[in-house]
């Protein structure tokens, strides 16, 4: 898959809310191919950073640069899956068809593409069921199918499994894995160390609004360079 968008470059990103710096001085370069996990405790600013990358929020300071300079092209080549899936009050299939319509996919192709996406996440059997009566796990898979159908170059995921039970989380995990294998760039936030260990190729470790470490996952988990990361990683031991 061609990557016109990447690398993504964050230059000195800062975000101020209610007179408080919730993100400050974040500079990073995110390459194509790997799965990037933004890791950190609650309140570190992970979701905020993700939204700034995706363009849902404007940074108070600094800037986001994609390799592609055409804003419309940047917009249409990326998509995001939220912590709690937000689905329209219509059938599972119609939710995907709607997204494809917004993206300007010709009418004749929408139905086929939507159905294929549903099959990919094993939801073809509930294509006609209203999206909002599906279970939490099914809803999140539907949100992923919707993202999948749009064939993005970059997929942002904000804590995609944190409100799911282990089985549903596992299914979501597998779908993310397959999206990665099909060439989609994965950029995901999580505070779940287990998930991060399984999925991450690169880690951006955030703590109190600052980027403390950016490292390959293997290196980060084996020998974190910062005291904060060591503390965060050892915190895991308290729970296992």
């Amino acid at each position, binding site marked *: 898959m061609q990557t016109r968008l990447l690398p993504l470059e964050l230059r000195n990103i800062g975000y101020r809310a209610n007179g408080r710096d919730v993100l400050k001085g974040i500079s990073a370069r995110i390459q194509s191919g790997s799965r990037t996990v933004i890791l950190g405790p609650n309140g570190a600013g992970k979701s905020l950073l993700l*939204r700034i990358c995706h363009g849902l929020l404007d940074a108070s300071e600094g800037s986001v640069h994609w390799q592609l300079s055409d804003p419309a092209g940047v917009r249409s080549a990326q998509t995001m899956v939220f912590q709690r899936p937000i689905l329209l009050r219509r059938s599972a299939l119609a939710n995907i068809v709607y997204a494809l319509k917004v993206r300007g996919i010709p009418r004749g192709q929408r139905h086929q593409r939507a159905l294929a996406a549903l099959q990919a996440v094993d939801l073809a059997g509930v294509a006609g069921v209203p999206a909002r009566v599906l279970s939490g796990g099914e809803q999140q898979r539907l949100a992923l199918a919707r993202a999948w159908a749009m064939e993005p170059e970059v997929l942002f995921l904000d804590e995609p499994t944190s409100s799911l039970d282990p089985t549903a989380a596992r299914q979501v995990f597998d779908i993310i894995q397959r999206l990665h294998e099909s060439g989609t760039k994965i950029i995901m936030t999580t505070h779940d160390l287990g998930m991060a260990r399984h999925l991450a190729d690169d880690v951006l470790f955030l703590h109190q609004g600052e980027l403390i470490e950016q490292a390959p996952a293997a290196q980060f988990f084996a020998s974190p360079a910062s005291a904060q990361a060591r503390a965060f990683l050892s915190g895991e031991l308290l729970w296992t």
Partner: protein
Amino acid sequence: MNVALVDAFSRLMSGDAELLAIIALSLQVSVGATLIAAALGLPLGASIAVTRFPGRQTIIVILNALMGLPPVVIGLLVYLLLSRAGPLGNLGILFTPAAMVAAQSILIFPIVAALARQTIDDAWQEYAEQLRSLGVGPWQAALTLLWDTRITLVTVILAGFGRAIAEVGAVMVVGGNIEGVTRVMTTAIALETSRGDLSMALALGMVLIALVIVLNALTHLVKETAGKRYG
């Protein structure tokens, strides 16, 4: 009282032609007004919900305040507009059902618009990020939200109709309560009561109350079944 009640029932059961004509006109006027108010109020409510502009809060406050306008004052304003010397006097529709539809439309338009705005604003809070992420523009978002909140909006519209069918002041002033032309249930009740024909007033009162109950039952049913079906 008892005699009047028995009389009222027999009038209802026998399908008194005068009674039926009054009921039919009431429904025509109020349904017409509701359709107009919905056609204008829903798009306005949705537009205000999904856009941000200076003065937006002021408009919301005004719209909410207009929900409580006294019908008789609306009647007076429409009367002034439509009276022969008024700016719309040459339409010649004062004391016709058209004037009554106009007055009731104005009466319930703010109700539909304000409640729709509230409903769609709430939905927008929930959907905004997702829709923006998909690349949906504000106007398309307004349409999407109108459709997604359709169940609540039906109850909003029914609330508007309930207000229209039950008001007396506006239709009295602009309609004139002319027998066989502009006499509706509420104005007839007012007249028959003052004239002492309590059985007619009671019969109409019962129809009106039954209508309001049916309307509320319908609203409840719509919410319940649709809520179960669409989540």
